[in-house]
């Protein structure tokens, strides 16, 4: 967006006091965090006894954990500048498989989970293969694979919902909680920490970002682009599988039509996340933060009992506003950054 560069390079910052600048810096890196806290405070005050109740927080964390894993799933290939549009259908397949293998094939849930994860890795590998070997545009390759997966889950279920009434307690407890903390949320947290370490602290993981910024330079720096991109897609596949395993335990049934609706929210979260923590690139912290913001603000609006269509308006509004704010903050930050070190 060269027009952007131009505009950013226009205008000059008048010298500004140090603490003000620190503030701007903070706002730029942690803008989403600030918004999140504001959301909590505002709705917390408006609905004191229900909004911040343990059950509400627990429920939100549980139901959002699936979206969170999928947002991380789309984030991984995004670091290399690739799209994965198959996540929606993939989580759907994983979910029906997970429930189906137990209900129809009478497999123990751990075995089913292992199979689902294996399938997930395979699907990711196929995506990666199409993108790296056949050089197919990731957007369309993963869209095609998504459609294939949707066909598979409909073939497996014949389009019918699989009843989960006999699902073992052990499996259902995946959606339960420990000391009142929803287990799914804990999983997401662990996954997040691991991914963060890989992407921020381990060179092999950081190479994904280099590929994203300049694939050719990355290649010429000895980074095996093909392998790295494959790895990104495989991790994406595994995350989808994990999300599907969770989703099955949350819904307690296998529905073939479930899944696609996760796609856009997942992308929204990881792209919104790219405006914070590590502005300018998709990152784990920002992604999870965005999930929380969207979920909690949405829940707040619902609890205010506004007309149903207000939810959509609000949903759209918060996306645009949040991004606009952090884009603005990032621009200010850059100014002060250059400014500060110029003295």
């Amino acid at each position, binding site marked *: 967006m060269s027009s952007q560069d131009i505009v950013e390079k226009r205008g000059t910052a008048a010298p500004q006091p140090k603490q003000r600048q620190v503030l701007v810096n903070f706002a730029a890196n942690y803008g989403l965090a600030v918004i999140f806290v504001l959301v909590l405070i505002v709705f917390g005050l408006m609905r004191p006894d229900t909004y911040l109740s343990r059950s509400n927080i627990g*429920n939100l964390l549980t139901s959002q954990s699936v979206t969170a894993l999928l947002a991380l799933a789309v984030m991984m290939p995004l670091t290399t500048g690739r799209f994965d549009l198959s996540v929606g259908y993939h989580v759907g397949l994983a979910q029906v498989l997970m429930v189906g293998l137990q209900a129809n094939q009478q497999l123990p849930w751990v075995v089913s989970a292992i199979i689902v994860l294996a399938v997930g890795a395979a699907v990711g590998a196929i995506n990666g293969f199409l993108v790296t070997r056949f050089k197919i545009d990731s957007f369309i390759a993963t869209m095609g694979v998504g459609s294939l997966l949707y066909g598979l889950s409909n073939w497996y279920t014949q389009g019918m919902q699989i009843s989960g009434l006999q699902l073992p307690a052990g499996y259902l407890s995946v959606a339960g909680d420990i000391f009142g903390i929803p287990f799914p949320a804990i999983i997401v947290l662990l996954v997040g920490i691991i991914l963060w370490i890989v992407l921020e602290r381990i060179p092999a993981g950081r190479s994904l970002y280099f590929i994203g910024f300049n694939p050719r330079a990355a290649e010429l720096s000895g980074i095996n682009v093909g392998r790295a991109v494959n790895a990104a897609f495989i991790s994406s596949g595994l995350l989808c599988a994990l999300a599907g395993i969770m989703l099955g335990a949350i819904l307690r049934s296998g529905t073939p039509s479930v899944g696609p609706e996760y796609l856009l929210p997942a992308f929204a979260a990881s792209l919104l996340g790219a405006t914070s923590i590590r502005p300018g690139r998709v990152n784990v912290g920002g992604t999870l933060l965005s999930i929380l913001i969207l979920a909690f603000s949405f829940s707040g609006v619902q609890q205010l009992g506004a007309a149903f269509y207000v939810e959509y308006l609000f949903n759209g509004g918060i996306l645009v506003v949040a991004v606009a704010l952090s884009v603005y903050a990032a621009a200010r930050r850059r100014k002060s950054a250059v400014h500060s070190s110029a003295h």
Partner: protein
Amino acid sequence: ATQAKPFPAWAAPTIDKSLTTDQASSIVAERTKPQTDWLGPTSGEQAPKGVKHIIYVSADQSYVSFVNWGRGVVEAAKILGWQVDILNGRGAVTSTLQAMQQAVAVHPDAIITSADASALQGPIAQAVAAGIPVVGIHAAAFPGPDPELNLYDNITSNPAEIGETQAAYVLAESKGTAQVVHFLDNSFAIARFKAEAATTPIQNCAGCKFLGMQNIPIADQTQRIPTVISGLLANDGHHWWGTTCCDNFYPYVAAALRASNIAPTDIKLVGSDGPPSAYDLIRKGDYEVATVPEPSTLFGFQAIDAVIQAMAGKEPSHFIQPTYLVTKANADQEGGKKDEFIPSNHFACHYQNIWLGETKDCSGS
């Protein structure tokens, strides 16, 4: 002594295996008549005093049936001075789940939902555990309590009757010679049951031919239906009847048939649900010739009544509104002027009598 735990389920409705043309004609005659007399409860629990808070978790506030049932809940609550909040499930299993969780979190006096309960077991169980009765409207396949899914009551027409009515109309009109296709979305148990009810008599009718089920996941109806029609016309010719679980397929089906230059006299569609589009198509004779509508606001009243029973710890009423059949002839009756099915039995008045312990005369009101 509010009771949230459901009573035992009722016996599942039975599907009649076959219908003679005469049986069919009499069923049609019966169900196209105005539904003037009140078959519901005339006595029962009075509403508890005080403002109760009800939450209606709609499966999708962008789809007319769910909206109408919500309207019914609101109208009924107005009689009692209760407060109703509507949460939107936004048509997707997961957003429905979130809406239901919100409902539980707000801890209302009761929850009424039109969303598929089998994917909401977690939060519904939470609600019941917290002593909040959950009443379904079309949330499960069959009418009555559903202990498995923790529904105190499930308000719906008798799906067997709906199927039977569709089959009867086809048999009667075709003099037992119809070739029939059934359109459904397999993913819903109730749709599969309706399908069985609508097609069994056809399969057992000597002169008829059952051409098969067409599964159309609702999410992809726009993309799928044109090619489905293309396949049907190619393999089954230009003379058949269509029945369905879901009237929302028919605008697309009609559009495809129109674009294929099929005469509306050759292919006839019988629907169920009865959204405005169905009334349109029937009035215009645009392929759809009849539909079996769901009552719009009545379900809301029935749901509130179930809630009141629950609050008294009593078993919900066994009342099920008989099915109705809309054809071009009676399209303007029983709420038809407003493109919805509102039986003219003054149910609101009757329920008000029970709930508020009044004794108004409802016959003429």
